């Protein structure tokens, strides 16, 4: 019965996909709109013509705009690619190394699947739900099937780059967010359940939250008329709190892995995790510095802050381990780096290098404490510490943003107006708290409901025998390592 429902689901999806080309209006071709420069060269190359000074000034103006657009667009396309690289191979390797060898392909497949699945959903309705319309809770359908998303910029969000660039850049965030949750469901969640749950989660939790924080008119939007202006430069609430808190709910709902915590479950290859973490660090420059949505000095500032916070967090986590266990571990150093990247995400475009060092250092210690102490006190099995790193790191980062944000870095509330506590505007810490609590509750409630729904349709957990045999064989019919073949 359950099986049948799932098959129907697949069939429906295929039908919808097949119908898309019929429904969607043609995206305006870029050649028609985006090359004023090309048209200019011919007319401007005729000296001695009767062109007035005003015409020339207007032409110059257009050329400057075109030049800026070219620079910004180049950076944003690179950033989009960098953010995709964070999911695959970055996160896939990071998580892939942390599981036992029998579950390696399963966890990597989940990240890869999301690269495909969320992309399709994004083109159909996702982008529109996040960035169409100007409602307080969720966007509309005006950009469904990517209608009207082409070479023309959308001045509400990024006035110097084609809206299609903004669209594809934001897609990469929507891909990595649900992928982070798979760290908590690792080694025991059904593949069919994962697909259904994360599809629903993207539509019901991610899309509204992204709209509320980043969308025009969103409830929590700091620059486009939100009621509770929450500072979230690159996704501390939307990406990390939402995925981290949902991860915790998933871990509790699914229950512990068979044999946890008595049976040892050490990472099967820290080499894979190490490479993954390094790719995450590099990719995160696209995530954070790219969130400036232009190749400007704010992007540089975010890049710098991101780097220093990450370095400080790698050191603080390692120091904590060194004091506690007598030895710093490689896994600790890379986990610390990821914690720092998470924590600086909401703050990246609001803080200078010194506060960034502080944020990273604090985040490394807090996340270390979360995964080593708090997890064992409460006994939940957050297999790869998606909550301990992303939920906790995102929360700490969002709150510290309210403390350290400065108008000299980013005058988001208008020139000369104080931004965070360092500027004397401690009320911002309250706004941050509202944003954090809201994101927590929203993710919490949404995830519980969606897990129940998924459980009724496909089921969420594999059988004990399947779990012991491993998800690679039971869910995908293959093995990660056939070393003797």
């Amino acid at each position: 019965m359950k099986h049948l429902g799932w098959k129907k689901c697949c069939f429906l999806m295929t039908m919808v996909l097949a119908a898309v080309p019929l429904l969607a209006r043609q995206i305006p071709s870029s050649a028609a709109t985006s090359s004023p420069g090309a048209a200019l060269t011919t007319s401007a190359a005729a000296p001695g013509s009767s062109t007035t000074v005003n015409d020339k000034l207007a032409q110059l103006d257009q050329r400057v705009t075109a030049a800026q657009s070219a620079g910004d667009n180049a950076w944003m396309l690179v950033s989009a690619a960098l953010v995709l690289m964070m999911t695959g191979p970055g996160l896939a390797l990071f998580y892939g190394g942390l599981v036992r060898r029998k579950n390696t392909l399963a966890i990597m497949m989940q990240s890869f699947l999301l690269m495909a699945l969320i992309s399709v959903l994004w083109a159909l309705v996702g982008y529109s739900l996040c960035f169409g319309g100007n409602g307080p809770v969720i966007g509309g359908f005006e950009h469904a099937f990517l209608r009207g998303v082409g070479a023309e910029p959308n001045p509400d969000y990024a006035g110097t780059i084609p809206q299609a660039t903004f669209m594809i850049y934001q897609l990469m965030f929507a891909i990595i967010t649900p992928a982070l949750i798979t760290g908590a469901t690792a080694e025991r969640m059904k593949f069919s359940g994962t697909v259904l749950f994360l599809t629903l989660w993207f539509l019901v939790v991610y899309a509204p939250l992204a709209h509320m924080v980043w969308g025009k008119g969103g409830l929590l939007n700091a620059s486009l008329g939100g009621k509770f202006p929450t500072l979230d430069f690159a996704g501390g609430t939307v990406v990390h709190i939402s995925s981290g808190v949902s991860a915790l709910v998933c871990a509790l709902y699914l229950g512990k892995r068979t044999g946890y915590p008595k049976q040892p479950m050490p990472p099967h290859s820290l080499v894979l995790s190490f490479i993954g973490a390094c790719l995450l660090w590099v990719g995160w420059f696209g995530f954070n510095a790219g969130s400036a949505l232009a190749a400007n000095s704010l992007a540089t500032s975010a890049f710098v802050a991101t780097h220093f916070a990450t370095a400080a967090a790698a050191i603080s986590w390692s120091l904590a381990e060194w004091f506690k266990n007598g030895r710093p571990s490689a896994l600790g150093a890379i986990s610390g780096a990821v914690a720092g990247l998470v924590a600086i995400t909401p703050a990246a475009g609001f803080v200078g290098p010194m506060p960034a060092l502080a944020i990273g250092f604090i985040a490394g210690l807090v996340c270390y404490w979360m995964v080593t102490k708090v997890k064992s006190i409460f006994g939940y099995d957050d297999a790869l510490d998606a909550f301990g790193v992303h939920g906790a790191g995102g929360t700490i980062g969002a709150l510290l943003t309210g403390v350290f944000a400065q108008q000299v870095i980013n005058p988001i509330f208008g020139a000369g107006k104080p931004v965070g506590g360092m500027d004397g505007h401690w009320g911002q810490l309250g706004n941050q708290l509202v944003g954090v609590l809201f994101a927590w509750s929203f993710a919490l409630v949404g995830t519980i409901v969606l897990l129940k729904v998924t459980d009724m349709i496909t089921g969420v957990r594999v059988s004990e025998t399947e779990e012991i045999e491993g998800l690679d064989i039971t869910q995908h019919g293959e093995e990660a390592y056939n070393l003797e073949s």
Partner: protein
Amino acid sequence: MMKIEAIIQPSRFESVKDALREIGIEGMTVTEVRGHGRQKGHTEVYRGREYTVDLLPKLKLEMVLPDPLVQRAVDTILKTAKTGKIGDGKIFLSRVDEAIRIRNEERGENAL
């Protein structure tokens, strides 16, 4: 004819092999094994979770020798495989009834 099975520390393998070659023993079979006797394992810590790893990597050398060579071989292994710490391994001796070379079906000590 006797069979010598020696379980040794992987780090001593090259010295043992060289010393055995010097006394004229070339043939042996080596296997990577895991185990422990009195030596306790070590602990590994992954994000605060401690695991005791009690099966440690060792190498097992097997060789079948004519009687006159056995004592010298044992002495050589004892001398070169020893570090003096717990975990140096063990040597087992057992009598072998027959040996046959597959290529030409030679039997007994000629097959060694």
